[in-house]
């Protein structure tokens, strides 16, 4: 070992060893820093470049009515597109003719697109259904065509078109909820998209030995509404008729609720829209105006103005007026004033008032709707006759403090909190001002003027005056289901508070029944034979705008002795027959009740009086104007049905001077072509109950006259009919049905 003698070399080797030791140490520290301290950061960055993910679209949940009828669902549709770059030149004409035929599109449009040889994706038609897509595939296969493709897409479909459209809303182009329930419950309905994550190499192709992770899409949940498609249908039918008949300018609102639970059985604003094609303007007049604007728009400014107007028109037709537009409730609100006054003892049903036709408050004369006034009347009469001075006095007796207190308790400040988007806040008098001033706003507010609430808000409050005194939380989704149909959550009826006692509520209900049931009641046109209905009319002046435009409304409830179903109809700016709510809004509510009460399982019970309803001689209407004929019939207490689109009555059934039971329907023909046309087959009613018979005959389009003494008795059924079943008769024909207990001998 030579080295023992060389101490310098030993030192130098130790020096170098030490330096290497330090170097290795530095590297270990560096590795520790990268792999332990910063590991997460690097891992995350590496993962983000290694993972390649594609999303799986979650299926959007359906919307059902309360009986599981599908109101909205998602369906698979196809987009047909061509790739001109891949298409053979000699097949262009074939493609153009084939696609234009199958897809019902323009030949030239397709042919022009086939010429864009540098393009790979030219859309021919969107939202093509499965059957048509199959035809396209067949066409491709048969002719061995290259360059026609179909891509799958999801479309929201509303099977009932316009039905409840302002409530349901719609989804936008990207499938996201944009309006109505679709927007409010978007998160619930849309679910969570899934992800397929696979490890990819740097070129983006899957690796040969790689694993793939699938996070399944969680499909959206479905909503079960409190809305009943049948109720909604009748509500919309009668509302739509009212809009047409009275030329309602600012749309009409109708709501049907269960007063005991707060469930919304129907809610509509007319005119509305078809959510399957939501951008189209459905109001003819507005659409024509817009068309004209578009055609005449030359400058940018005009084009801009057109777009603004279009957007406004769309927003208007989409708007759920029932919750978004507060209005002055008018006399319907008197039920709330009445309930508060009766509850506090400020008045009793027998408190006497005197109506001179006006009432002076702080030097201002407030008129009663009835010229000359009601004269002497008690509080019940004030409700029945909707007397403004009596209610001003009632408001004064109640006093501002208690009045405000009850406005609050009836939920008229703020919002109802219903599960719908776009609910507006009420516009109320400032509490302090009302307390301090000299009764001016208290006076007008006590009969429902000078403040604004939404239709739903008013209804929820008024419901509490007749349902035993409970302010119920209104709601529209009663159940949420998962994608397999299991119940995720249930909405239970919620009592917000008891506002008045059950006794007071019963008093209000019985007083308001007289509005409909008694001669001279302002809501008598809402009466439906066989049912006890109560209600209150409403006429409000639009005080905050020029002119004498009014809002006519009617609130009705049934059965009056134990209210369960209530309807509020509000017509904003009717142009024809726009007298008072009693004339046009009440019959709308009556018609809806007549249709939905039997459907909802309420058996009619006819009073002796109703059974012996004196026949009315049908007035002669031929050659009179349609509007005039309608007014005549309404004044006579008859319903009507118009066949044809003319303006002149050319024929009628039953004919003039023929007897028809009060409340019956006269069919008016307005087109000469339709003369004598409308007939129907008379149904077989023997053995049926009064209710069933009524429904069968009316649904077939005939009038019914009920006879027989024992109709009130249990087991009473139809035992004969005046027109034989199976024969054809003109609609409107009066069919007399005799009732009796089965097996009972026919009266001679």
């Amino acid at each position: 070992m030579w080295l023992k003698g060389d101490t310098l070399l030993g030192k130098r080797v130790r020096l170098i060893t030490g330096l290497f030791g330090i170097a290795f140490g530095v590297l270990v520290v560096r590795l520790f820093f990268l792999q332990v301290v910063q590991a997460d950061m690097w891992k995350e960055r590496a993962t983000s470049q290694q993972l390649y993910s594609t999303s799986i679209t979650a299926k959007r949940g359906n919307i059902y009515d309360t009986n599981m009828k599908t109101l909205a669902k998602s369906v698979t549709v196809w987009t047909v597109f061509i790739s001109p770059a891949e298409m053979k030149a000699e097949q262009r004409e074939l493609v153009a003719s084939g696609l234009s035929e199958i897809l019902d599109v323009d030949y030239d449009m397709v042919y022009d697109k086939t010429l864009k040889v540098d393009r790979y994706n030219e859309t021919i038609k969107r939202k093509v259904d499965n059957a048509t897509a199959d035809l396209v595939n067949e066409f491709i296969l048969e002719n061995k065509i290259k360059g026609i493709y179909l891509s799958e897409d999801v479309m929201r479909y509303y099977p009932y078109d316009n039905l409840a459209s302002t409530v349901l809303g719609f989804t936008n182009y990207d499938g996201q909820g944009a309006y109505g329930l679709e927007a409010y419950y978007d998160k619930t309905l849309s679910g969570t998209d899934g992800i397929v994550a696979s490890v990819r190499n740097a070129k983006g192709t899957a690796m040969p030995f790689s694993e793939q992770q699938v996070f399944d899409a969680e499909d959206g949940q479905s909503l079960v509404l409190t809305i009943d498609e049948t109720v909604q249908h009748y509500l919309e039918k009668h509302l739509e008729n009212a809009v047409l008949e009275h030329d309602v300018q600012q749309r009409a609102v109708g709501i049907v609720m269960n007063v005991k639970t707060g469930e919304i059985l129907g809610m509509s604003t007319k005119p509305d829209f078809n959510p399957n094609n939501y951008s189209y303007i459905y109001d003819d007049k507005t659409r024509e105006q817009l068309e004209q604007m578009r055609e005449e728009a030359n400058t940018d400014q005009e084009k801009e103005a057109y777009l603004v107007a279009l957007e406004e028109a769309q927003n208007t037709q989409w708007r759920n007026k029932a919750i978004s537009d507060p209005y002055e409730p008018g006399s319907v609100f008197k039920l709330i004033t009445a309930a508060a006054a009766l509850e506090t003892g400020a008045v009793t049903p027998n408190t006497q008032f005197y109506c001179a036709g006006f009432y002076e408050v702080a030097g201002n004369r407030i008129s009663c709707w009835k010229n000359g006034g009601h004269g002497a009347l008690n509080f019940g009469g004030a409700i029945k006759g909707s007397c403004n001075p009596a209610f001003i006095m009632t408001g004064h007796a109640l006093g501002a403090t208690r009045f405000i207190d009850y406005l609050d308790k009836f939920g008229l400040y703020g919002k109802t909190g219903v599960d719908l988007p776009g609910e507006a806040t009420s516009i109320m008098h400032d509490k302090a001002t009302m307390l301090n001033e000299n009764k001016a706003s208290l006076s007008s507010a006590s009969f429902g003027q000078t403040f604004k609430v939404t239709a739903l808000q008013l209804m929820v409050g008024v419901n509490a005056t007749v349902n035993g005194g409970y302010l119920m939380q209104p709601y529209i989704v009663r159940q949420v289901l998962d994608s397999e149909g299991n119940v995720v959550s249930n909405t239970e009826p919620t009592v917000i508070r008891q506002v008045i006692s059950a006794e007071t509520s019963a008093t209000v209900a019985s007083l308001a029944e007289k509005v409909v049931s008694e001669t001279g009641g302002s809501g008598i046109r809402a009466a439906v034979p066989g049912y006890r209905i109560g209600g209150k009319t409403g006429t409000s002046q639009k005080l905050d705008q020029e002119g004498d435009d009014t809002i006519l409304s009617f609130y009705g409830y049934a059965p009056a002795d134990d209210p369960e179903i209530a309807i509020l109809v509000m017509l904003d700016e009717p142009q024809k027959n726009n007298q008072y709510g009693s004339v046009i809004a009440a019959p709308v509510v009556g018609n809806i009740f007549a249709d939905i009460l039997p459907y909802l399982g309420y058996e009619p019970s006819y009073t002796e009086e109703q059974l012996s309803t004196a026949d009315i001689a049908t007035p002669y209407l031929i050659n009179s104007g349609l509007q005039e004929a309608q007014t005549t019939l309404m004044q006579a207490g008859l319903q009507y049905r118009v066949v044809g689109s003319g303006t002149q009555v050319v024929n009628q059934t039953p004919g003039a001077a023929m007897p028809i039971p009060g409340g019956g329907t006269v069919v008016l023909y307005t087109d000469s072509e339709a003369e004598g046309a409308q007939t129907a087959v008379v149904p077989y009613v023997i053995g049926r109950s009064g209710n069933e018979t009524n429904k069968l005959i009316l649904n077939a389009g005939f009038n019914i006259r009920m006879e027989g003494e024992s109709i009130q008795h249990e087991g009473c059924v139809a035992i004969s009919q005046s027109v034989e079943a199976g024969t054809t008769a003109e609609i409107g024909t009066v069919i007399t049905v005799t009732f009796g207990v089965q097996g009972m001998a026919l009266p001679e």
Partner: protein
Amino acid sequence: MANVTNSLKRKLIKPMSGQMDMVFFLLTMLLLVIGLVMLFSASYANAYYLLGDSFRYIKNQMIFAVAGVAAMLFISKVIDYHIFHRLVYLMMGISLVLLVVVFFMPALNDAHRWIFIGSGNYSISFQPSEIAKFSLVVLFAHWMSINPKSTRSISGLIPYFAAMGAIMLLLIPEPHLSATVIIAVLAVIMLIIGGMNLKLLVAGAFAGVPSLLLLIFIMGKWDRLMGRVSSWLDPFLDARGDGWQTIQSLYSIGSGGLMGTGFGNSRQKYLFLPEPQNDFIFAIVCEELGFFGATLILMLFALLVWRGFVIGMQAKDRFGSYIAFGLTTQIALQVILNIAVATNTVPNTGIGLPFFSYGGTSLMMLLGQVGVLLNISRQTKPGSE
């Protein structure tokens, strides 16, 4: 000087009876096996995608490894290291010639580093810089052993620096930064071990480093150097370009974490990290084996270096000691530089990891050098010559 070589003339090629250093041998074999296994793991994705045969790299490497181990054992047993006293100038001459020849060879990645012989499947390629490093070690050991005082004076040092300078002058224009640096550091370390005055070293560093930079500048490689430096300081400056390899290496190392993703489970080797079988194989090692595995391999290398130095300390003469120190230092420098590059501790220079990186001829060279070291270890005991 002639005495030394002549006296050994007849004994230089014959089997030796002395026992080789088993610790060094086993560490070598262990690192070689781990290296081959990791090469397979690191290379198969690239081999699959780019060559269509997952086993291409590992098959080639195995052939050279087997041949290399045979050569190592043969050299350690039969070739007396003193033979290099005689071959030293020939080797140095061949090195310089090959370093000139390399400029007439096709460029790879804009650099002339490889000499290609043959064509197609039967081609072979190697870097003359590998031979130059070995030649330099032998040359320095030769000079330092026959004239130990030569390192103590400025005039005595002139030949050393001349030899070193000649090699570097040829390496810079290739360009081959890593080899240049290794030659310089290797030469300096050998001179330090040889007893060079450290004050002189400091003075030399003051003169040498600026002149090296000047040389790089004159030879037009300044931009390349600065490019490396800037992407070292912030690889994300040009994440898709110059910084890509470094970034991908950091992703690999970092995502290994403490325990690694497990053998074979690297994701980064799937075309993200360029040439994972070559200079950046350690990044894949870190990703698959984690901090623990990487540290373990570093410790094996450290042990190997330590054992190489032990052989150097125990060698029977100065020549053996200096060769042992030189060859061990060369391995140590390559390991340190390679891992420092992979972890972005120093700027990116192309250098392989001994026993791990793909490259048949360089692996054979390495194993041959280990054979020389083992031969030195056989001759430590007195009487074993």
